[in-house]
């Protein structure tokens, strides 16, 4: 019961994050929505494991958190440098 109630709240938050991803005027809004959606998905997988009585799902949640992070960094790097191989971001001539 209590897992189902939490799951309902999480699904509402997912819909809201998705809404921001669809509305988002700039590409950064969409990436932010994607990143947040990923975090909520991690929680949803963890709760789903409890809901179905299979706590093995936690390994998948851990993996999802990891992939979410690496994916966000990859998208941001591609947006900023135009390719994924930029050798030294520190030495890049940007002012920021």
């Amino acid at each position, binding site marked *: 019961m*209590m897992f189902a*109630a939490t799951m309902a709240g999480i699904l*509402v938050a997912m819909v809201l994050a998705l809404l921001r991803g669809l509305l988002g005027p700039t590409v950064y*809004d969409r990436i932010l929505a994607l990143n*947040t959606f990923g975090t909520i998905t991690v929680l949803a997988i963890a709760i789903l494991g409890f809901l179905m009585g299979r706590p093995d799902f*936690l390994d998948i949640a851990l993996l999802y958190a990891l992939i979410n992070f690496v994916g966000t960094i990859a998208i941001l790097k591609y947006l*900023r440098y135009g390719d994924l191989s930029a050798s030294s971001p520190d030495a890049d001539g940007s002012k920021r």
Partner: protein
Amino acid sequence: MIVEMVSWLCLMGGALLCVAGGIGMVRFPDVYTRSHAAGVIDTGGAFMILLGLAAQAGFTLITVKLFFIGLLLFFTTPTSTHALVKGALFGGQNPIVRDSPDKDNGVAS
């Protein structure tokens, strides 16, 4: 019994914080303010739900894995938010700021 209560409280609080963060993400005006609302989901919502699940599981392997999920989120979510905000700033998104000459660049000036 007390554990049940704490678990309920944490799970409900976490779910409510997630919904509040989601509402904030839809309502706030620009990407920087929205990242604050996303921060509510990333920290408050995530940690409270993980805490509630851990209270439910007791001292087992499940709690250890929940702890590692929390630790990973603790390190990665602020990093990706920081990278995102930095990228938005570099990408030419100007933050909406109410003009206030007294506080801008407060101590640095």
